[in-house]
């Protein structure tokens, strides 16, 4: 058993006690402990995209009958690292017609919120950085800020393709935010809390001894909610089939056409971090978080959580490498005429279920 949650919390308590013993006020000790936790999350969120980029390359390679990176390290595992280093040393190009301030700030605005978003994610038993009471709403609220970064990139580049990409991005992200939030509402209704830890904790145990009490297994409501959440999440992360803001064949690279070096890397980081965040959210909301159903004791909860998260990340990768891209107007139609009505219907059904249960 490798439950690191209790161990970590004990360690932080010991640390706080230690520094208080040396004369630091308790609030200062608390801030120090939280700062270290935040540092761990920043590190994790920076490293996970590297793993995901590697996974994306390998998954796409195997889907496309090729090998993918093979030269840097065994099976090319250090390829992403090498690319990261390369990007860091690349020239930072700012076009003449660009709005320098917007161009420089855009990648930072796009990437900064994602670190904050991981605060209420329950990585396992006792592994919740901050158990916010409004966890789900918090993540939705903060992740919306990244859209501003995309708009700033589109505007600040002084390039028509970037501008079109930014425009499309704004329209798409605002639209898909709505069914995405609404799809989660049945979960909140049934568990009566917005805390991700609380929701995950509510999904422990089994129905009839074999079916996990995960939300996805609620008849109709669970599956529909997950489907809408997944589709809207793919759209929110700008990935195929919803990658119209950066549609390569139409808009060159959309809003990040004019970005190079580290700034480009930041956009990349943001995209993959959001993929990871969406998958983690889906696991906490629909798949019982760190719950291991019948095989409960086989692995510690954080491994369960990570395993499920990567399984959903694989779905994202799978979509990207098999689907063509939707056209921009069909994309909007799909959102407003299909996802949104069904999300509302789902809320109604969830309400009925609660009524019937009473």
């Amino acid at each position, binding site marked *: 058993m490798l439950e690191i949650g209790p161990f970590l919390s004990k360690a932080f308590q010991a640390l706080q006690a230690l520094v208080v013993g040396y004369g630091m006020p308790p609030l200062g000790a608390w801030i120090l402990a939280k700062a270290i936790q935040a540092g761990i999350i920043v590190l994790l969120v920076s490293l996970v995209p590297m793993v995901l980029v590697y996974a994306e390359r390998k998954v796409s390679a195997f889907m496309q009958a090729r090998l993918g990176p093979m030269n840097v390290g065994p099976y090319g595992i250090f390829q992403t690292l090498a690319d990261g280093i390369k990007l860091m040393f690349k020239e930072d190009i700012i076009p003449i017609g660009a709005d320098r301030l917007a161009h420089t700030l855009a990648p930072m605005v796009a990437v900064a919120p994602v670190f904050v978003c991981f605060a209420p994610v329950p990585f396992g038993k006792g592994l919740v950085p901050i158990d916010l009471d*409004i966890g789900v709403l*918090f993540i939705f609220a903060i992740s919306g800020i990244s859209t501003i970064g995309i708009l700033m990139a589109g505007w600040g580049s002084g390039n028509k393709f970037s501008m079109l990409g930014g425009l499309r991005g704004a329209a798409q992200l605002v639209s898909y935010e709505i069914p995405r939030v609404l799809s989660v509402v049945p979960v909140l209704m049934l568990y009566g809390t917005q805390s991700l830890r609380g929701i995950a904790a509510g999904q422990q145990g089994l129905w009839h001894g074999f079916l996990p009490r995960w939300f996805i297994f609620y008849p109709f409501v669970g599956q529909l909610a997950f489907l809408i959440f997944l589709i809207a999440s793919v759209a929110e992360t700008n990935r195929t089939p919803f990658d119209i803001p950066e549609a390569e064949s139409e808009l060159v690279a959309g809003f990040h056409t004019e970005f190079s070096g580290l700034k480009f890397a930041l956009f990349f980081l943001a995209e993959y971090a959001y993929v990871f965040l969406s998958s983690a959210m889906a696991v906490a909301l629909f798949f019982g978080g760190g719950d291991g159903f019948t095989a409960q004791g086989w692995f510690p909860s954080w491994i369960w959580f990570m395993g499920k998260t990567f399984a959903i990340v694989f779905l994202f990768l799978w979509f990207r490498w098999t689907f063509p891209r939707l056209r921009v107007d069909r994309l909007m139609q799909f959102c407003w005429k299909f996802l949104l009505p069904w999300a509302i219907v789902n809320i109604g059904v969830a309400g009925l279920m609660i009524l019937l249960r009473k």
Partner: protein
Amino acid sequence: MERTIPTLIFGLLAMLLIGLSLVVVTSRSVFRGAVALTGALGVVAGLFALLGADFVAAGQLLIYVGGIMIIMLFVIMLSQRPQDHLDRQTNDQWVWGAFFSLAIACALIMQFRAVYRGIFVTTVATPTSASIGRLLLGDMVVPFEAVSLVLLASLVGAVYFGLDKEDRS
């Protein structure tokens, strides 16, 4: 100590808010002004959070920053070109405008000085979503629905004016 840290944070946020608001009214680029306004609204969310209103803070971020401001930026990008971002955003009346704003600010400060006695709300975020939900769908349900009717009317109006002349009839 327990009191100084929130006060410090409040001071920082307030300064940031004033600075960003000034950028909104003085920036020559509409786009930059809108971005600064976005930042200002985000800072307001921070103030809400400082007051322990977690739900309102998140709502502020979700609706104003993630929704309304993005639509505003969208409109700016649709109607303007990146090249012409050097229009003056102020007119000849700005002196009077500044004077009256300052006057109102002074009046507000005087008013609140009487009430403010250094009392500060505790920074520990107490869950508020349940009570807000009860209020909105309980005691306040009629005004709440009335507001949504107003929004619906304005939406219909917007669609009507957005249509081409031939389609209106």
